[in-house]
C-alpha cells in the first residue's frame, strides 16, 4: 500500500468558548486506506470531520487534506473530496438521474462523463428501473447506496462518510461495505465514522475519540492486542472507561 499521507493533523483543536470539542488531535491517514473514525456520540467526531471537510474553521493546530491547508485552502480541499452525511442529503424531489447530473455537474464533470458514469452507476446498483423516479419513492436502503455513489461520482481523492450505515439493515450494511472496499481498491481513500464496532474491524486503521481526544489509534489488530481484547467491542468499552493507553 502506498504510504503517502493524504490527511495529516497535528494538535488540531476546535474550541467553542471554553469548551474544546476537539482537543489537540494528531493523526494521519494514508492514501488508499479505509480509516475508521470511532467514538461515542458527542466525542467530537463530527466536529473533527467538519474541520477536515472545510465546513468549520479550526481554532488551532495544523492539518492538511489532500495536500491543502484546512485553515486557508478550504475551497481547494472541497474540489478533492466527496462527502456523505448521516442525514440523507440528496434531493427527494429530483429523480435519481437528475441528482446524478446535478451533483456531478457542480463538480465540473462534462456531459459525456455524466452520461457514462451515471449509467455505469445506475447499472451497478441495479437501479435502471427507477432512474427517472423521484428519490422520495425509493426505499431508504437504496438511498444510502445512491448517496455514496453520488458522493464518489467525481472520483474524489478522499471520501468522507459520516455514519453512513445508521439505521440500515444488516444486509444493506454489508453491501454498503462492499462498495466502500471497491472504492478503496480503486484508490479512493475512505474516511468513515461509525459506532458499529463490527464495522471497525473492516477498517485498515482506526482512531477512537473520547471527550475530544484520541484515546486509541492503530489497526484493529494492534488495538486488540494493546487492550488485551477479543474484539473491538471490548476495546471500545475499555477505552471509554478510560483505561490507560499510551498516546502515540
Amino acid at each position, binding site marked *: 500500500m502506498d504510504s503517502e499521507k493524504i490527511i495529516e493533523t497535528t494538535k488540531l483543536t476546535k474550541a467553542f468558548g471554553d469548551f474544546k470539542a476537539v482537543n489537540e488531535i494528531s493523526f494521519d491517514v494514508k492514501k488508499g486506506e479505509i480509516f475508521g473514525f470511532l467514538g461515542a456520540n458527542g466525542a467530537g467526531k463530527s466536529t473533527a470531520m467538519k474541520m477536515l471537510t*472545510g465546513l468549520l474553521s479550526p481554532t488551532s493546530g495544523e492539518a492538511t487534506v489532500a495536500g491543502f491547508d484546512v485553515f486557508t485552502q478550504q475551497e481547494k480541499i*472541497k474540489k478533492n473530496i466527496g*462527502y456523505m452525511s448521516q*442525514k440523507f*442529503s440528496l434531493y427527494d424531489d429530483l429523480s435519481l438521474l437528475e441528482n446524478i447530473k446535478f451533483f456531478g455537474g*457542480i463538480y465540473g464533470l462534462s456531459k459525456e462523463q455524466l452520461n457514462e458514469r451515471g449509467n455505469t452507476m445506475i447499472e451497478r446498483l441495479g437501479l435502471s428501473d427507477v432512474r427517472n423516479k423521484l428519490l422520495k419513492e425509493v426505499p431508504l436502503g437504496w438511498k444510502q447506496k445512491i448517496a455514496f455513489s453520488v458522493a464518489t461520482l467525481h472520483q474524489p481523492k478522499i471520501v468522507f462518510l459520516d455514519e453512513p450505515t445508521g439505521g440500515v439493515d444488516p444486509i444493506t450494511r454489508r453491501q454498503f461495505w462492499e462498495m466502500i472496499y471497491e472504492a478503496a481498491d480503486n484508490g479512493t481513500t475512505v474516511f468513515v465514522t461509525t459506532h458499529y464496532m463490527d464495522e471497525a474491524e473492516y477498517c485498515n486503521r482506526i482512531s477512537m475519540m473520547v471527550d475530544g481526544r484520541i484515546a486509541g489509534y492503530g489497526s484493529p489488530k494492534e488495538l486488540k492486542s494493546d487492550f488485551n481484547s477479543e474484539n473491538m467491542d471490548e476495546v471500545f468499552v475499555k477505552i471509554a472507561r478510560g483505561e490507560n493507553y499510551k498516546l502515540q
Partner: protein
Amino acid sequence: MSALKFILQKEFKQIFRDKGMLPIIFVMPIMQLMVLSFAATFDVKNIQLEIVDRDHSQLSQSLIEKYEASAYFNIVEFKHATDTKGTSLQEGSVNISLEIPNDFEKSLTQNTPVSLSAKVNAIDGMTAGISASYAQSIIQEFREEYINKNKALLAQNKTPFKVNFSMQNWYNSTLNYKFYMVPGLLVLLVSMIGMFLTSMNIVKEKEIGTIEQLNVTPITKGEFILGKVLPFWCIGMFVLSLGLIIAKLAFSVPMLGPIYLIFLFAMLYLLVVLGIGLFISTLADTQQQSMFIAWFFMVIFVLLSGMFTPIENMPVWAQQITYLNPFRYFIEVMRSVLLKGATWDDIKINFLIIGIYAIIINTMSVLAYRKTNG
C-alpha cells in the same frame, strides 16, 4: 460558471415540481389584485351632509344645488341661522355639517375673502379626510364657475380678483381609488415573491440538510447565490407582467408613462427584495423563523410605503424612516409612471437610490452567507 447552469436547472425543476408553487405564481397575483383592490378602496359615497345656511342668498342656494347634484352627498338637513348646536353630528346621522356664513354673497360680490366652515365627524379619520376633500372640491368648482361667469364684470372693475376660500389642494373628485391601489398591490406582490420565496427556499435546504452537502462542494458563493436568486427574479418579473396585464384588462388602470421604465426599475428592485430574502435566510435556521422575520419586514415596509396612507400625512420621524423603505420607491415609480406619465427624468433619483440599496443589501447578504463556519 458551469456550476451555475446546473444549479439553475435544479432550482427550476424543484420550483415547478412543488405543488404549492404554481398557485403562488398564478393564482395569488390574480386573487390579490381582484379582491384587495376592491376591498382596499377608499372611495367614499353617500356622505350625509347637513347644511347650515345663514345667508339665504341666491349664491348660497346655487352652492347648495351643486351639493345636491353631486353623487357623493346626500343632504339630510337644512338648518337656519338660529340653530347653533351640532346635534345631528353628535347623533352620528350626519358626516359633515357645512356652514355658509351670512356674508357669503356680499363678500363674493365685493371681492372680499370669505370663510366657510365645515365640521366633520372624524371618528373614521380616513373617511373624514376624504369626505372633507370632496366637500372642498365642490366649493372649489363653485368658485371657479363664479370667476368664469363674472370675468367680464371683474375685468371692468379692474379690481384684482381675490376670492379666497382658503382651500387646500384637492383630489380630483373622479379619482378612482383602484387606480391608486392597483400599482401599490403590484409592488406588494412582487416583493412578497422576492422576500418569502427566496428566504424559504434557502432555509429549506438548511432544514433538510442538503445545504451541508452543497457547502462541501466546490460551488462558489456567487454561483450558489445567483443560482438561488435568479429563478425568483424571473418569477418576480413574470408576476409583474401578469399583474400589469390584469391591471390593464380588469381595472383599465391608465398607463400614461413608458412601461419599459417600470420593467427596468423592477429588474433593479427585485435585486433588493431578493437580497433581503437572502439576508433573512442567513439569519434563520427554520422556515418558520424565516417566515417570521420576513413578515416583520413586510409589515413595516407595507405600512411605511405610502401604499395605504400618504407619506405626507405621517409624522416627520416616520417620514424619515420611509426613505429606508424600498417599497416606497417602487410605489412612487409605479404610480407616477402609470398615473402621471412620469418619464426618466422624474424618477431617475429612485433608480439611483434603489441601485445603491441593491448593492448594499446584496453585499451584506453575500458576506453573511458562509460556506465555512467560524
